[in-house]
């Protein structure tokens, strides 16, 4: 056995060396051709597929989340819009009501003013008419009574003084 352990003693060293080298290389090539290649390809394909699926799932989830948040926003917006529409309508109604009321008030005021003015004017007209009548009347009366012709202008100033007296009495 000791002889066997001395490497140089074994005469077949080179042959075995070469044989194993060649056998191993051929074995490696065969394994690569028939088993390693296909299996490795499949393993790579599988890992690529898993990565792709994970990415896809991730994208899908993000999209779904985005969609959900968009929907929520839209819902929130529509609610706010509805509230605003109602508020606007209310305000419009309020404004219209106020405008109508104002207009009515203004109309009524105008009518009242006009009536007041008309009345005042009628009164003034009547007063003027009365004034003229009284003048003429008093002149004719006076001329009849005293048979004395008074100048119309004197008479008029006399009547005016009476009338003034009369109206001051009236205002008192």
């Amino acid at each position, binding site marked *: *056995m000791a*002889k*066997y*352990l001395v*490497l140089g003693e*074994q*005469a*077949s*060293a*080179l*042959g*075995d*060396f*070469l*044989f*194993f*080298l060649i*056998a*191993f290389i*051929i*074995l*490696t090539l*065969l*394994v*690569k051709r*028939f*088993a*390693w290649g*296909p*299996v*490795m*390809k*499949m*393993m790579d*394909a*599988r890992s690529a*597929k898993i990565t792709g699926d994970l990415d896809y799932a991730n994208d899908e989830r993000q999209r779904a989340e985005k969609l959900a948040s968009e929907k929520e926003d839209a819902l929130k917006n529509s609610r706010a819009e509805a509230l605003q529409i109602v508020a606007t309508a209310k305000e419009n109604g309020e404004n219209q009501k106020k405008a109508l009321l104002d207009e009515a008030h203004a109309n009524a005021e105008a009518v009242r003013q006009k009536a007041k003015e008309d009345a005042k004017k009628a009164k003034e007209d009547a007063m003027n008419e009365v004034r003229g009548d009284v003048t003429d009347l008093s002149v004719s009366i006076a001329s009849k009574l005293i048979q004395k012709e008074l100048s119309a202008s004197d008479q008029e100033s006399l009547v005016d003084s009476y009338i003034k007296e009369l109206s001051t009495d009236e205002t008192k």
Partner: protein
Amino acid sequence: MNENYPIIEFLGIRFNVTNCLSGLLAAILVFILVFILSRKVEMRPGKAQNFLEWIIDFTNGIVKSAMPGDEGRPFYLYAFVVFLFIFMSNQIGLLLQVTIGGHPIIKSPTASPIVTMAMALMTILLSHYYGVKKMGIGGYLKDYIRPVGFLLPINLIEEFTNFLTLSLRLYGNIFAGEVLLVLLGKLAASMGLITYVGVLPIVMIWQGFSVFIGSIQAYVFTTLSMVYISRKMEEE
């Protein structure tokens, strides 16, 4: 251990028939194994493909533990074949010890130092080749005076010790296992039926242990191969 190996001469080179036949048998068995396991390669693996992928992942893990990055990629196949071949070689001798006419024909090829040295030499050559390829010839040579110049002789000796320990560790383990197995066989046959029955459980225990040793040694050989290769490719 029977040392009466048959030797044939071919083209002026002498071949040890036992080693060659055993190695050939181991290679054929490895090929048949992976061939059968890889017949139906699908995206959803069946049992056979799962098993094969488990072995591949295991050997890839060995490479990755030495070379974590992409630089380990060229060695995945090498580690796979080395592991399976050495594993199969270690186990052959436990099941099969064929002797014809006083000449052993089939035994564990790894029980011969020449065979283990052939395997170790392959690894060492690969490590030097990839060392030069990766670092350039200058970087490769500079590796011998690291960390300081006067360590050059030690670094040179280390190359040989790496080679020797890698090969002789495997050889020693498997050779010792076979020697004990043969001795137990002789003991069993020495005194007829009594020793036969008595030694049988011991043989079984030792065979089981040898299976374990053979697996461990295949793993150790592959791991150390990758460590030696990665050390040559390391940048410091």
